[in-house]
């Protein structure tokens, strides 16, 4: 496959991975993937990247900061009985 095809399909890979590509586009991408090892790596590692971030717990609001949310200046009128 020509690198031209790789570049041409690059913009559609997220749609493909999110299941939002049309049947025609899916077929085009899958045909290209059969012949293009580079794009297979890109799509596999892109899928893996997305999965790793879906599983990432993310920064936790520290308990002390959570506590302070109820006591910051001006919060009294909203939060304290």
């Amino acid at each position, binding site marked *: 496959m020509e690198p031209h095809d790789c570049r041409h399909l690059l913009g559609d890979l997220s749609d493909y991975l999110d299941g939002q590509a049309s049947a025609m586009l899916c077929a085009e991408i899958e045909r290209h993937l059969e012949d293009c090892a580079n794009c297979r790596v890109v799509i596999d*590692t892109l899928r893996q990247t997305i999965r790793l971030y879906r599983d990432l717990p993310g920064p936790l609001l520290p308990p002390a900061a959570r506590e302070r949310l109820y006591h910051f200046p001006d919060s009294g009128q909203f939060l304290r009985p």
Partner: protein
Amino acid sequence: MDDPLIAETSDERALIARLQAGDKAACAECVELHAPGLYRLARRMMRDEAEAEDVVQETLLSAFKSIAHFEGRSGLRTWLYRIAYNAALMRLRRSRPDSVSVEGAGLDGDAGLPVPRQMFDWCCLPESDFDSREARDQLEAAVQALPEKLKVVFVLRELEGLSTEAAAEALGLSPEAVKTRLHRARLWLRERLAAYFTELAQPAAED
């Protein structure tokens, strides 16, 4: 996660009505429900925990003050993210006036998408290499390092689970811009993670 654009679980409608009536218990409920997510967004936009905490405080205060004007066009969560994003952006602009405004150029549309460079397939690493504390730190550091305008789209769409439409509403972007920025962010992160995981898979390659 349910679509935050639809403001519509009866629970949420009831909570909004109580907030608008000035019910303090409702404010506390809103903090319980939404502060953790607001903090995750703020922490990823700001440099440290203290700044992130300030953004969350400012967001909640400003939300409680203006809840009367909340029209329910978007969900409460989307509306809060919008306030938090703007609060964080203001702070960033104040502290680094040049850095935030310029980098948006050329981010939308497919023209000039960065060509993938890292071509090692690191998917087959043992799961323990992805699960480690170090890997999670790498994942967080990579998000922190994303260009601002890609980062916030990635955080809201991929990490906070907002729909394309809700993220567009929160950020004042078109749904199309959200989609292309999410895609750019994913490609950018893939390159960065590949550098780390490739090295992990080939520890002897440098010798």
